[in-house]
């Protein structure tokens, strides 16, 4: 264990020379351009002759589209094209497939099904003119009653949203279950204690600081389409464009330049992208389209929106026996969740979390509503956010019922180290863990016993003197994630198996270039992956360049989301570097006139076993491999190698989080006083970057627990359509994070590493909610839905909570 303090940093950086040879706190290579304002984001791209697109959107949540009159817009002197659903229908492009076996309208033809849905696309000489022309389009709508509240979507007589699908009579998308219902039922039937709780994980949005956008450039002469776009998955986008637009895939190049944050928002393909491509085809000029912030919040991938009813069964002495949950999942107007095909609820069924539970069962019903499509986004690890929140809230409810300390209850029920690998009741195979150690580490850093003593003291004083001070709460969350999809036989997206390639070239002078399929959005791949190569080949990190974000230059793979970069591409990188090293061994054998089997590897060199004076460095070997050296039969020269890594299993990072909050009962205002996070993500390649990932996720937790939400009024109007109303945490709401770590390597990952990018987003909300509920314990409060805004907390204290997903009455 090591707790990182303020002095934990200090690599000598700013993009300067770095002689580091492997793992550790290496300053990021990418910083050199960003700190100079020299990043290259999509909106920074300006191509000769480029035009600008803008989208006209529906003001209605549900309406029949009667007519779209574009004549005045087309007459605008700077407008070059106006594209409508009708235009696209002529090209068979009015609808596109989603990532969940549904279709989504690119531009509406029959109805609009959510506020902000795309109706027309204007292409003009300038960004300002394109916006002006939107005002000149006249659309006639016939308003229809919308389905806003997911809980009424399946009611008799609910408006039918998807009448475009023949034979459809209701708004049900799917019913899906996991676990053994019968066995779980038996456990509940004879349980000593059963507690049930309804809870909502509200609709939120990843809201990366850079919105989504594209520059589409169709070269009519070569027939090649180049798109520069904000994508976390360039190769997947290329294949989807080929399938949607019927363009030959070798004539499509997807370039993902610097990305200003993704968090899952930039996985899917949005109608604006297709419109821009069509715009470029129609005008013969490059077309740029960038969302504004309202478009981003109103129409692109939201996350969560899970209405859950959890039940937990236990013995009176605090042994958890069963967990059961029913979920109503609001998927919006089109089923566009980006998740591995076999699991319509993503990985939600890992909801037994970190505990040794006899039986578990979940049943998920997905419904259409008149809201934007999405559901799987925002660092959710395919819905593990919802799963972790559910189980961690249920544990606290049980602790309150039994009068047991929530830390004690967790320690009693956490999986023990000797139970790994562990097969969960819902079919997961956890790779490694030592959970009690991690929780105890967090409790030590927090000074858990002292905190509880302080709380008891404050409560006693408040009871005696009716003191008006803040209420103190302590909340724990212990999460287990399952990240790094595939294996490909179990997991695919639109039939594309979840495995990723890597290519490694070593130049004659021993400098290396790694090509990978995953796409950084700030995670520092250019550094971490160079460190893996440096570690495996024993060469300086500075001698390795990482190429990514260009489908013409990189091997196929499914991209970065679900915390899969290190588990999948990190493994691919290690494997390909080891291949290079093995080739180097054969070459070194020829150089040293020794049997390769008699060589041994020391960092950076193959030496004759037991004789360090007789060896060859990677640089010498690389030169020899490109030279005139006579190589043994079967070795073609050069050290370059390629691989595709198909992970044998997911990796299972975990962590223990403790939040300390103060609640002002007079105003309902919550302050996060401290937050302790102990993450175990196996071996850390660059601890500095890992900690940065955790910091960001913890801020997400503060945001979701306390302020972020997208609610809708009864007409389906979006009530969080700008940063004035969709609130993101600032430096003032975030405490100084207190981090710690334990290291339990993944047994099946070549480096022992696990994914970590989403851990803190998954794990932190429950800790904060648990802390606030704990603070409100004297008022008899047992649960409160997110976000815990001042108004919500005050109303909860009054015993009159409101629905956080609807307009506040």
């Amino acid at each position: 264990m090591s707790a990182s303090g303020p002095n934990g940093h200090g690599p000598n950086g700013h993009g300067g020379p770095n002689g580091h040879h492997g793992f550790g706190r290496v300053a990021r290579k990418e910083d050199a351009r960003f700190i100079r304002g020299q990043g290259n984001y999509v909106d920074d791209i300006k191509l000769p002759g480029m035009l600008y697109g803008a989208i006209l959107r529906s003001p209605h949540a549900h309406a029949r589209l009667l007519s779209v009159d574009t004549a005045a817009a087309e007459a605008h002197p700077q407008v070059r094209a106006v594209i409508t659903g009708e235009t696209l229908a002529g090209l068979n492009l009015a609808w596109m497939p989603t990532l969940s076996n549904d279709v989504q309208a690119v531009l509406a033809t029959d109805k609009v099904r959510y506020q902000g849905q795309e109706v027309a696309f204007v292409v003009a000489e300038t960004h300002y003119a394109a916006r002006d022309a939107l005002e000149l389009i006249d659309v006639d709508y016939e308003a229809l009653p919308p389905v806003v509240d997911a809980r009424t979507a399946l009611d008799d007589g609910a408006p039918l949203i998807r009448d475009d699908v023949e034979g459809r009579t209701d708004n049900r998308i799917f019913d899906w279950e996991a676990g053994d219902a019968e066995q779980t039922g038996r456990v509940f039937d004879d349980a000593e204690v059963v507690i049930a709780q309804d809870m909502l994980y509200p609709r939120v949005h990843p809201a990366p600081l850079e919105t989504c956008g594209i520059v589409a450039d169709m070269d009519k002469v070569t027939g090649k389409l180049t798109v520069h776009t904000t994508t976390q998955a360039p190769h997947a986008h290329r294949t989807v464009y080929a399938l949607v637009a019927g363009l030959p895939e070798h004539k499509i190049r997807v370039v993902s330049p610097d990305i200003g944050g993704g968090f899952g928002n930039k996985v899917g393909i949005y109608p604006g992208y297709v419109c821009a491509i069509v715009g470029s085809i129609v005008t013969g000029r490059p077309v740029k389209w960038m969302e504004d912030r309202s478009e981003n919040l109103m129409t692109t991938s939201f996350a969560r929106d899970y209405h859950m009813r959890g039940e937990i069964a236990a013995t009176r002495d605090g042994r958890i026996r069963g967990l059961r949950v029913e979920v109503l999942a609001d998927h919006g107007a089109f089923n566009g969740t980006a998740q591995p095909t076999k699991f319509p609820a993503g990985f939600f069924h890992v909801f037994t979390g970190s505990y040794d539970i006899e039986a578990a069962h979940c049943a998920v019903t997905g419904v259409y509503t008149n809201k934007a499509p999405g559901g799987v986004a925002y660092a959710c690890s395919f819905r593990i956010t919802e799963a972790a929140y559910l189980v961690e809230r249920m544990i606290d409810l049980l602790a309150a019922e039994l009068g047991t300390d929530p830390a004690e209850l967790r320690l009693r029920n956490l999986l023990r180290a000797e139970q790994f690998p562990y097969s969960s009741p819902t079919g997961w195979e956890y790779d490694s863990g030592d959970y009690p150690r991690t929780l105890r580490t967090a409790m030590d850093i927090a000074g858990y016993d002292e905190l509880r003593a302080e709380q008891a003291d404050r409560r006693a004083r408040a009871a005696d003197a009716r003191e008006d001070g803040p209420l103190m709460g302590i909340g724990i969350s212990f999460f287990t994630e399952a990240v790094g999809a595939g294996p490909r036989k179990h997991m695919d997206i639109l039939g594309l198996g979840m495995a990723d390639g890597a290519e490694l070239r070593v130049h004659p002078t021993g400098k290396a270039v790694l090509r990978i399929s995953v796409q950084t959005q700030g995670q520092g791949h250019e550094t971490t992956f160079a460190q893996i190569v440096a570690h495996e080949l024993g060469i300086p990190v500075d001698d390795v360049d990482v190429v990514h974000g260009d489908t013409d230059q990189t091997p196929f793979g499914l991209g970065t989301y679900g915390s899969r970069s290190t588990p999948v591409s990190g493994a691919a990188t290690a494997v390909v570097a080891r291949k290079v090293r093995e080739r180097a061994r054969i070459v070194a054998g020829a150089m040293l006139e020794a049997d390769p089997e008699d060589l041994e590897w020391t960092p950076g060199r193959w030496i004759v076993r037991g004789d360090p004076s007789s060896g060859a460095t990677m640089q010498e070997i690389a030169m020899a491999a490109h030279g005139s050296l006579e190589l043994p039969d079967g070795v073609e020269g050069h050290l370059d190698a390629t691989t595709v890594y198909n992970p044998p299993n997911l990796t299972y990072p975990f962590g223990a989080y403790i939040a300390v909050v103060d609640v002002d009962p007079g105003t309902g205002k919550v302050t996060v006083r401290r937050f302790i996070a102990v993450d175990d993500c196996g071996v850390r390649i660059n601890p500095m970057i890992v900690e940065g990932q955790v910091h960001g996720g913890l801020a997400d937790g503060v945001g979701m627990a306390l302020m972020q939400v997208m609610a809708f009024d009864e007409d389906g109007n979006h009530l969080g359509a700008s940063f004035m109303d969709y609130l993101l945490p600032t430096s003032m709401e975030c405490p100084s994070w207190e981090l710690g770590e334990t290291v339990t390597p993944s047994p099946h990952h070549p480096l022992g590493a696990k994914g970590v990018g989403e851990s803190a987003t998954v794990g932190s909300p429950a800790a904060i909610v648990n802390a606030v509920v704990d603070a409100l314990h004297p008022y008899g409060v047992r649960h409160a839905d997110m976000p815990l805004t001042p108004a919500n907390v005050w109303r909860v204290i009054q015993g009159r909570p409101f629905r956080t997903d609807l307009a506040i009455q």
Partner: protein
Amino acid sequence: MNITVTVNGQPCTRDVEPRLLLVHFLRDELDLTGTHWGCDTSNCGACVVWLDDVPVKSCTVLAVMASGREVRTVEGLERDGELDPVQKGFSECHGLQCGFCTPGMMMTSRWLLDRSPDPTEAEIREALSGQICRCTGYENIVRSVRWAAEHPAEKPEEVTP
């Protein structure tokens, strides 16, 4: 309208529509794309630049309003090939991930340090409270600014006339 804005010390004259936002003037007219934008409502701070020595949100300033004035952007932080301590601090302390908020954060940080060379953590947090970072949870941004405070640039030696 014909306007002249002095950007990073260079007078720049352009003919613009009065409605052109300063952020677009910098990015589209002058190709200074280091200044970003992230919202429309002056909430996110990605577009922060200096206007006559104070940080402002350039998405909510008209370019014509800057005519005859001085603007400093992230591209003007580096002086004579030497990075500003704030730039070094952000790299040194991993104060950035995706890099999108970074220019705005650095511009406000430089301003804070000019006014208050040894700010407390609370002062740093308050100074940056109008700017959103989605990646770092602010922790390392605060450390970066502290690093810059502890490693001020060496003052150029005064030349005696």
